[in-house]
């Protein structure tokens, strides 16, 4: 399981990465993509949508099932990674490159797990 140190994680297996301008990229962790299996569709939210941490933000469909993706932090969608609509497999190949959304007005980053804590959570599951 690949769990880079420079990312923060949620218990529901999303990652978050703070950018220099204060916005936050959100994606699915390596464990999430591995558990989901080959992804075949990604439904992204609309730019301007606001979420509280824990809200259902979008969904992804794998050969096994459709699964909700939760907002790991509160924020407003500033950008979505439209490339994923045509190439959902990018999430399987490069989970930490294939960001789903960029959030602004973010709060709640401090509640996320660092890599070590996330690994501990995954091991408990």
């Amino acid at each position, binding site marked *: 399981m690949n769990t880079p140190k420079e990312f923060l994680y949620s218990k529901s297996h999303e990652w978050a990465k703070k950018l220099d301008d204060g916005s936050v990229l959100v994606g699915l962790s390596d464990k999430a993509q591995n*558990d989901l299996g*080959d992804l*075949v*569709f990604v439904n992204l939210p609309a730019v301007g949508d606001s979420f509280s941490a824990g809200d259902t933000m979008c969904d992804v*469909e794998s*050969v*096994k*099932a*459709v*699964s909700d993706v939760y907002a790991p932090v509160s924020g407003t969608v500033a950008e979505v990674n439209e490339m994923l609509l045509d190439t*959902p*497999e990018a999430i399987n190949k490069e989970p930490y490159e294939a960001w789903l959304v960029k959030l602004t007005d973010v709060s709640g980053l401090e509640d996320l797990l660092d890599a070590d804590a996330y690994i501990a959570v995954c091991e408990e*599951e």
Partner: protein
Amino acid sequence: MKLIFESGASGRGCSVLPECDVPVFSLPESMRREKAPNLPQLSENDISRHYTALAGRTHGVNNGFYPLGSCTMKYNPKINEEMAALPGFSSIHPLQPEHTVQGAMEVLYQTEKALCEITGMDGMTFQPAAGAHGEFTGLLLIKAYHKHRGDSKRTKIIVPDSAHGTNPASAAMAGFTVVSIPSQEDGCVDLEKLRAAVGEDTAGLMLTNPNTVGLFDKNILEITKIVHDAGGLNYYDGANLNAVMGISRPGDMGFDVVHLNLHKTFSTPHGGGGPGSGPVGCKALLADFLPGPVVKEEQGQYRFHTPEHSIGRVKSFYGNFAVVVKALTYILTLGAEGIREASQNAVLNANYMMKKLCDLYTMAYDERCMHEFVMSLEPLKKETGISAMDIAKGLLDNGIHPPTMYFPLIVHEALMVEPTETESKETLDEAIEVFRSLYETAKTDPQALHDAPHHTPVRRLDEVGAARNPKLRYSFE
């Protein structure tokens, strides 16, 4: 193997139609198609061989064990087919005058009475073509009920996260907002979460009981009461009725509306187009909203009746009528005692298999199950890399249809096994041996399972390719 579109030759055919005995009517020029349709042109012999060859490449209940959880793939007794083929049922037209189809109407009437007795409901429609269609119809009844009372605030349907995927989909289709509530670890409803979710905007709750992990929710009376107290109605998804027929009734559990899957519980063919049948039963308070027509009996005569506030038709005519004939045949063949015994044996068979496998396979829930049980292959996957999918493919090599995979979502690497009551102890014992030997193979030769199936007409299919780039029709050159 050639597709049927690639077979045959121009000008070949096999239709020998009887002479026309009604006046010939020509379509107006403007409504005629300009080009002949691209229909396959084959002799009867070619067609017969084509479909026999196709059938030889499939696996059905007639081929072997088919423990597909939540689907109740029970044996389809041949007497059902005989009854449905009787000319009085098979050679009638739905627009015939009532007095000429009294027998067919009696079938609808009697089946309604029997299924209402089994479910504890007061009225029923046979129009819905299958389960999800039944859900949609039932939800429209709930909607009509609230609307009729002028209670327009009720826009939300509560669905536990362990529900069948069709539940939230049907609720959304019916125009409701879906509120998903997390289940407890045992797949049962979390009463506190339910209490927190209900309110003035609650139109109803959708629930399967036994639930999707094969456990009977012991709090069912409390659950339905919470929803009723909030002014909502309770919808029973009949997918798992096979566990409780003749023993407990949704109507007595506090449900107001229920759909049944005749193609699951009542032994009519399932899958491959069935066709299915998803009758919807309801309590008296919803009966005035049922799709029409329904059959009434008056002084020994049957007649069609459209309920006063009917939501309208949800399908042409009377639904898949021949399926109803088969279901009634099944009910009358078994009788009240037999129906109960079927459920008892379904539960017994599931518990027998679970008990015989639980020393090797990790069961998701360590307690007695109802008609199906869920195992988690997660520990095996961690140890050997063999997933639920790999075990499923290994089963195919042994002539067993895989159980339901990766459902319910709340169990990781899930295999959901539903043996049904129609399997003998010998069949169950053979399947148990196969499961056990696959477990050994996972430990000793995992590559053999990663490569499975080895002996099926096709090996592993490209599911990703099929999902991303589906070919939904044949392209003529």
